[in-house]
């Protein structure tokens, strides 16, 4: 029930916000902030209460939802989902704060859609029933479409439609795979299905079936992650979306893809995974190659960007490549690294997008070359940006490094050549971030921005928690890793 509370409080908030009088925008914002703070509070309790020594589901709740098809409302969390759940709950209020002043039209609708989105995201990470999982997956789609399509930049409609169609395309393939799994397994219950799939001789454990189902799910999630070549919606969506939505997009929505890969493809379809990750045969390197391509391709594309936000978007693609590479390794360090990287990327990319938003709100453009010398005008902003950039380019002592390094260390075991090639991404990553830092902050101050106001308190409040998390996780990653380490052990145990 605890989790249900977390899922549906934002939904309740949505109803409340919609019922508020039209002209009470400030009140609506406060109410929304309150309704996003409650899940955060619950998440803190969850963080305290969560039993870190157990690898199975906790806060389990199961009741029949649609009897005819044996669909259950089954929610529960394991170590991997709880990490992302905490991230979602944390980013909620931050995003509300980040959109406090720069959303002007249709504030109520915006907030209501945002709350719906939060419900979808929290529900997605809790769902333990395949159908429920799919429902929440799609629930996030709709508010996102409107949030980009109504409150976005000049090309918002194009971006929104592209995002929508892309994800829908992946979602349909996923739905087909879900139905196939249901027909073979006879149930939608994810833990049961995982169990069945591990039983030799069960139709669900059939290798051919697993490979096809794997592909269906994989493409569905690959669009979300996004994995090359399904990534082109991401830069457009990011560039057009308002700041807070970019944060959610990069922080949570991309993680839905990788989380799905872990929960479904990795745990439920091990034989499919085996084919694409064992490093042998024609397809054995496929997964790792995708990770490598994501890293290097994303980094190189980021280096070429002139738009600040697009650069961050492409860097996201590169960072998700490390997750893919870590998952492909299928060993303890690789998996832990991948999941840590998921969390860290959520935090860091959220910071990056918030930071871009800060400068965009002031200058009303994002051309990297159009700034210059902001370092002398906005020292605090520059400092925070430097921290975020350094974390993103994988500076040790900040969280980005740990996930990246663990993923690479794990992957080297299986795919030495690909991993060595992937390290090129580290250098290019440093190159584009430093180059951006130089173009925006270093050098003579651009006289156009001689009276640019320094970052204000509200913006600092949105950034500081993430910054602290970045530093804390960089120094003491066990803080997060304790949460999912047992779950990861459970995942890789069948692999021997």
């Amino acid at each position, binding site marked *: 029930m605890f989790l249900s509370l977390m899922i549906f409080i934002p939904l309740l908030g949505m109803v409340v916000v919609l019922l508020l009088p039209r002209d009470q925008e400030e009140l609506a914002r406060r109410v929304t902030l309150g309704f996003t703070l409650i899940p955060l509070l619950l998440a803190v309790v969850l963080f305290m209460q969560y039993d870190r020594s157990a690898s199975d589901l906790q806060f389990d709740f199961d009741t029949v939802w649609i009897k005819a098809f044996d669909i259950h409302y089954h929610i529960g969390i394991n170590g991997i989902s709880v990490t992302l759940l905490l991230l979602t709950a944390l980013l909620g209020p931050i995003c509300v704060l980040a959109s406090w002043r720069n959303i002007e039209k249709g504030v109520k609708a915006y907030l209501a859609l945002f709350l719906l989105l939060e419900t979808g995201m929290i529900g997605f990470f809790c769902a333990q029933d395949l159908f429920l999982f799919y429902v929440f997956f799609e629930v996030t789609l709709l508010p996102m479409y409107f949030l980009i399509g109504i409150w976005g930049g000049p090309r918002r409609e194009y971006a929104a439609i592209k995002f929508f169609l892309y994800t829908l395309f992946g979602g349909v393939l996923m739905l087909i795979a879900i139905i196939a799994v249901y027909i073979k397994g006879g149930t939608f219950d994810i833990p049961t299905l995982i169990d069945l799939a591990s039983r030799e001789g069960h139709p669900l454990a059939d290798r051919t079936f697993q490979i096809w189902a794997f592909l269906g799910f994989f493409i569905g999630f690959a669009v979300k992650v996004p994995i090359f070549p399904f990534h082109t919606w991401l830069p457009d969506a990011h560039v057009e979306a308002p700041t807070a939505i970019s944060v959610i997009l990069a922080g949570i929505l991309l993680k839905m893809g990788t989380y799905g890969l872990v929960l479904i493809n990795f745990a439920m379809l091990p034989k499919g995974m085996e084919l694409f990750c064992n490093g042998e045969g024609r397809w054995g390197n496929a997964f790792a190659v995708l990770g490598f391509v994501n890293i290097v391709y994303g980094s190189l594309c980021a280096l070429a960007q002139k738009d600040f936000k697009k650069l961050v978007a492409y860097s996201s693609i590169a960072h998700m490549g490390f997750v893919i590479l870590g998952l492909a390794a299928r060993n*303890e360090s690789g998996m832990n690294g991948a999941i840590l990287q998921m969390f860290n990327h959520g935090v860091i990319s959220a910071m990056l997008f918030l930071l871009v938003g800060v400068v965009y709100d002031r200058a009303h453009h994002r051309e990297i070359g159009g700034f210059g010398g902001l370092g002398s005008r906005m020292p605090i902003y520059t400092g925070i940006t430097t921290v975020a950039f350094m974390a993103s380019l994988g500076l040790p002592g900040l969280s980005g490094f740990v996930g990246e390094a663990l993923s690479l260390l794990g992957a080297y075991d299986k795919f030495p050549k690909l991993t060595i090639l992937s390290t090129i991404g580290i250098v290019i990553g440093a190159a584009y971030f430093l180059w951006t830092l130089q173009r925006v902050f270093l050098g003579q101050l651009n006289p156009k921005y001689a009276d640019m106001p320094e970052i204000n308190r509200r913006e600092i409040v949105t950034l500081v928690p993430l910054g602290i998390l970045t530093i804390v996780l960089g120094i003491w990653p066990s803080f997060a890793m304790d949460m999912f380490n047992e779950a990861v052990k459970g995942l890789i145990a069948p692999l021997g």
Partner: protein
Amino acid sequence: MSVVVLFSIILLCPLAAFSVFSLLSLAGRNSPRQDLISTAAMLIAFVCSLLLFVTANPENPDHQTLTWLPLESVDFSMGFYFDSVTAVMLLVVTIVSSLVHIFSIGYMHGDPRYPRFFAFLSLFSFSMLFLVVSDNLLGIYIGWELVGLCSYLLIGFWFEKKSAADACKKAFLTTRVGDVGMFIGMMMLFAKFQTLALYGEDGIFAAVSDLGAGDLTWLSIAGVLIFCGAVGKSAQVPLHTWLPDAMEGPTPVSALIHAATMVAAGVYLAARMFPLLTPDSSLVIAYIGGITALIAATIAIVRFDIKRVLAYSTISQLGYMMLAIGAGSYVAGLFHLTTHAFFKALLFLGSGSVIHAFHASHQAHSHHDENGHSRGSEAPFASFGIDPAQDMRHMGGLRRKMPLTFVTMLIATLSISGVPFLFSGFWSKDAILVEVLYRAMSWHSVHHYILFCTAALAAVITAFYMFRLIFMTFFGEPRNREMYDHVHESPKVMTVPLIILAVLSFPIFNTIVNKGFFENYVKTPEQPHVGSPKHAHDSQSQGVLYAQAGLSVAYAAEDAHQHHDDHAAGEHHNPIHDKAHNIVIPLSFVIVILGIGLSALFYYWKKISAEAVAAKFRPIYNLFWNKYYFDEFYNGAIVAFTVASSRLFGLFDLRVIDGIVNGIGFTVRELFSRLIGWVDNTFVDGLVNWVAQITLSVGGRIRRVQTGMIQNYLLIILGGLVLLILIFRSL
């Protein structure tokens, strides 16, 4: 006090000093007394290091770890390791750092970002100390990158200057290339040993000695890759180009980071990795060190920027240390690291003192003193792209104006030139030459004498250009009278550190920088394959190992034999070693006399015109002047290639990948509208923007269902019903 507590204090003091600054500035406040906080923190760290050095017993290394990541199959622990090397490094770092802090109080006075400078220095000190005390590769890597960050921040301290902004980026990126190599090496070791810890029973060093003969090549590759990190950080060829540019940073930074500590971290790493180094990887290290020493020295001859000369000198000296490590002389390498840290810091701080004086005079001269940090913005005379305050062609005769600076710098110069017996540099340089020669002799391979020759040649050149610097700066007639008139000696807060460092450059006055003591204190660790400690009796397997390493079996046997000798009687009673020693000592005199004499001929007595010689050897001069065209090569080839390929990829992404996606969207839309077009082909979309077309077509598709014709609904309902019945019938 126990080692742990002292370590904690040493690490936490600088970190706390930095935290105070960052928290205050986040709250929007200034940290008014940051200079005192940072300096005090550093002094405390220094006292603790001294206490450690005095009290702790280096014979009995202290090693503490705690689990960093709770993984089962692999080991990730963090910890510290305290042995004699750690003790020496701690002392060196804290001494130089403290002195640089004090010097900076004077040097950076009046800078608008004065507190920030000290905060960054503190962060750097913390990182460097963390690097030094770490017991595992991951910890070293963390410290490694953090010092790189601090270096970045401090080189770009005056980031309004484009050259500084470029230089800091270049420094970070170039070292990152080396770091990636190091990371790959770490991955190799990790994949093999499932740990990155170096010491302890499960550590890499323990595991390495159990490796079989087949792993020798693998180990060599891993060793060289780890060494890549050192190549980047210690500015060895081919990744040395960032260090001269790094001189764009404030001079105290150059002294601390780019002369004494951070760049020496590469040497420290190579020394720490000593037990991993196979003959092959040692050879690579030795050659890279030797080449670097020579190339950097030759470039230094023709520089006019006082800091650039020192930068190339640093590169050259670091090459020396690498050469020593590669030649198997752990002690000599570390000893040179220590002595070099002091005299090079002294040289930099001395040059800082000169620059400071010149700047003050420049400001007094041009009555333009509101902008303390806009250096070089107004050049009153031809600058050749060099900051006039750093151009030796504008100096001269300064010994009369700045006697303290002159004397201390002269001592450092004598030290670096290796003037026999009195100065620390002699002992360390001499040790390296002896070791290299000894190694060349015992390798029985004539071509390894090249190493000794480069080392000796580099020593001559070093003496030459260092005295060129002294002669041009402090002797002769002032070349720029206006500036000269305004120059005066630096304040005490700047000269006192110079004096202390000068004292430290004399081995007589202290026991730390004393060769004999150092050799007793720092013990060479065993190199499993080179020193053959474990399998010495098993000559069969040794033979195989060395055959694979490409070395003669005879040498292997001899080396093993020798090791026994070393253990039995100590190094000095080795006949070959003695022979090497006997050659090198007289040679040192020759080197010094040759170097200083030539320099004096050129620049003191002016018997030979440097310009004439340069004109005569124009191609060589051009080669030196253009730094062997490394920068041109990197900018023209690697940077250009990367940027071009990134553009290509960016366009590819925009046009091809996205084009395919849009194309598919377009095709699907077309097909779909054709498909239903024959049912109702009246739908014509006259929209120019096909973006909006998608919207419309989606809407249109839904709308077409909504024709308002009841009969159509009925038809569809009935048809659907029939279909459903048919479907269910077939079930």
